[in-house]
C-alpha cells in the first residue's frame, strides 16, 4: 500500500491526467465545431444532468444492472461446475475444449445476432453476458484445479480429512485467486457485451436502448451521457466486487 505522500502524488497525477483529457476533448470539439460529431465536455455534462433527472433513466440503469449481474452469476455458477469437472477429468476437459475455444474465438456480434434469432429481446443480453463470461471462468477454474498442490491432497488422504473439508480448506483456497481473476475479467466484459446486446436487441429499458435511441436522434451528447452511465455501472460493480473479495479473504 502506498504511503500518504505516495497516495497524494498518485491523486495529483490522476487529476492532471483527467484535466488534460478534458482539455483535449474541449479543444477537439471547438476545432470540429459540430455538436453532432463531437459535443463539448460541458454540453455532455449538461446532458448527463438532464438524463439523470429524466423519467425512466434509473429503471433503464437498473434493468441493465440486473441483466449484467444475472449473466455474470450464471457464468460463475456454470463456469465453476464445468471448471471443477474439467479440472478433475482429463476426458471431460478435452471433450469440452473445442467448445470453449470456439466460444472464445467467435466475434461477440455474431453471438448477439444468433441470440437475437433464438431468444426474446429481454433475454439476449443475459445470454450473451453468460456466454462471454462462462469460458473465462471455466478456463481459470481449470487452471486453479490443476494448480492445487497434490502433496496437500495426499496429506488430506492419509489423515482421512473428509472430502467436503478437503474441498473447503485445500481445493477452494487454491483455486480462489484464479476464480477471482476470471470473475473480475468476466464482470468487466459483461457490461460491455450487455450494453452492446441492448443496442442491437432493443429491450424496452436499458442503457444500450437509450444509447441507440439517442444515436437515431443524432443526440451525440446524450450518447456520451449514456456511455458515462455505463462507465459508472462498470466501475462501481468492479469496486464492489473487489471489496467483497477483500472481505472474504479477511474472513478466511
Amino acid at each position: 500500500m502506498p504511503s500518504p505522500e505516495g497516495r497524494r502524488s498518485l491523486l495529483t497525477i490522476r487529476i492532471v491526467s483527467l484535466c488534460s483529457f478534458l482539455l483535449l476533448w474541449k479543444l477537439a470539439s471547438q476545432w470540429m465545431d459540430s455538436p453532432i460529431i463531437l459535443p463539448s465536455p460541458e454540453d455532455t455534462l449538461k446532458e448527463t444532468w438532464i438524463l439523470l433527472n429524466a423519467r425512466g433513466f434509473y429503471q433503464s440503469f437498473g434493468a441493465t444492472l440486473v441483466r449484467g449481474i444475472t449473466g455474470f452469476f450464471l457464468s460463475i455458477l456454470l463456469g465453476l461446475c464445468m471448471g471443477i469437472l474439467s479440472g478433475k477429468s482429463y476426458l471431460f476437459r478435452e471433450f469440452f475444449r473445442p467448445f470453449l475455444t470456439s466460444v472464445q474465438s467467435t466475434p461477440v456480434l455474431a453471438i448477439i445476432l444468433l441470440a437475437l434469432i433464438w431468444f426474446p429481446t429481454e433475454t439476449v443480453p443475459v445470454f450473451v453476458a453468460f456466454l462471454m463470461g462462462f469460458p473465462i471462468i471455466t478456463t481459470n477454474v481449470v487452471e486453479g484445479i490443476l494448480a492445487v498442490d497434490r502433496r496437500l491432497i495426499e496429506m488430506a488422504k492419509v489423515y482421512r480429512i473428509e472430502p467436503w473439508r478437503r474441498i473447503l480448506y485445500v481445493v477452494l483456497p487454491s483455486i480462489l485467486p484464479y476464480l477471482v481473476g476470471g470473475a473480475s475479467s468476466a464482470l468487466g466484459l459483461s457490461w460491455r457485451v450487455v450494453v452492446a446486446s441492448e443496442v442491437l436487441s432493443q429491450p424496452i429499458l436499458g442503457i444500450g436502448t437509450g444509447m441507440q435511441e439517442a444515436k437515431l436522434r443524432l443526440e451525440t451528447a446524450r450518447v456520451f451521457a449514456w456511455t458515462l452511465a455505463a462507465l459508472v455501472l462498470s466501475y462501481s460493480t468492479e469496486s464492489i466486487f473487489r471489496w467483497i473479495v477483500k472481505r472474504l479473504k479477511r474472513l478466511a
Partner: protein
Amino acid sequence: MRVELESVRFAYGSVTILDRFSAQFPSMKVTVLLGPSGCGKTTILNLLAGLLTPQAGSVRVGDKPPTDIRVGYMFQDVRLIPWLTVKRNLDLILPQRLPLEARLDRIRSVLRLVGLEQALSLFPDQLSGGMYRRVGMARAYLYEPDLYLMDESFQGLDPPLKFQLLSMFQQLRSNSPKTTIFVTHDIEEALLVGDEILLLSPIPTRIVHTLRNPVPIEDRVPGNQEIARLEGELFTLFRKEQLQLGEERV
C-alpha cells in the same frame, strides 16, 4: 501391529523400483529403512500409507490393507496447509464430532509436548524450520495412529536441533509406543532411532543387511561408543556393497 510387504512389485513407467520385494517390520518397534537417495524408501512408505498400490504382491498392516488403518505420516516436506494457522492445521485431522473445546485441549497438550504452545495462532510461513517439523510431528502424534511413517523427517536440520527433535520423537514414542517405519540416509540418525535397521540397495530395491540395534534406547545418544562402532560397521557395509551414500556423508 505387524507390517508386511510380500513380493511387492512397483514401477514408475519403465523404471522398476520394487521387484518381488518382501519385508517384515516388527510390531511396536522402530524399523529404519537406510539407503541411498532414490533407492525406493519413500515408495515403500507411500505403499504403506495407501497412497500407492502395488502392481503385484501385497501390503498388510496387521491383518488389514493400509487403507483400513490409521497412519501418522510425517512427510519429508511436512505438508502443513500454508493458509491455515497451526491450530487449524491440527484441528483439521481431529474428528469434528468432538466439541471445539475438547479438540483445542488436545491440540494444546500435544503442542506443549513438542514445546510449541505459543505457536497456536502462527501460520506455517511464520515458523522456523525446526518449529515446522515439530508441528508435523505433533500432527502425526495427535492423530493417534496405528502406524507411524517418518520420511527423512529431520533431514537438513543442524545437528543440535536434529538431536533435540530425535529425543522429542523418542519421548513421544515412549508415551504411546507404535510400530514405526523411519526412512533416512543418515547412518548415525538410523542408529539413534532404530531398533532394527534395514540396509537397502539402489533400485530395484532389496534388503542388503538387517541390523538389530543392541544399544538400549536410553543410551542412544551422539558420541556413544557402541553407536560409533556400529556406524563404522554400517559404513563399511555400504562401501562393500558399493552403495552411494547421501551427499551429507560422502
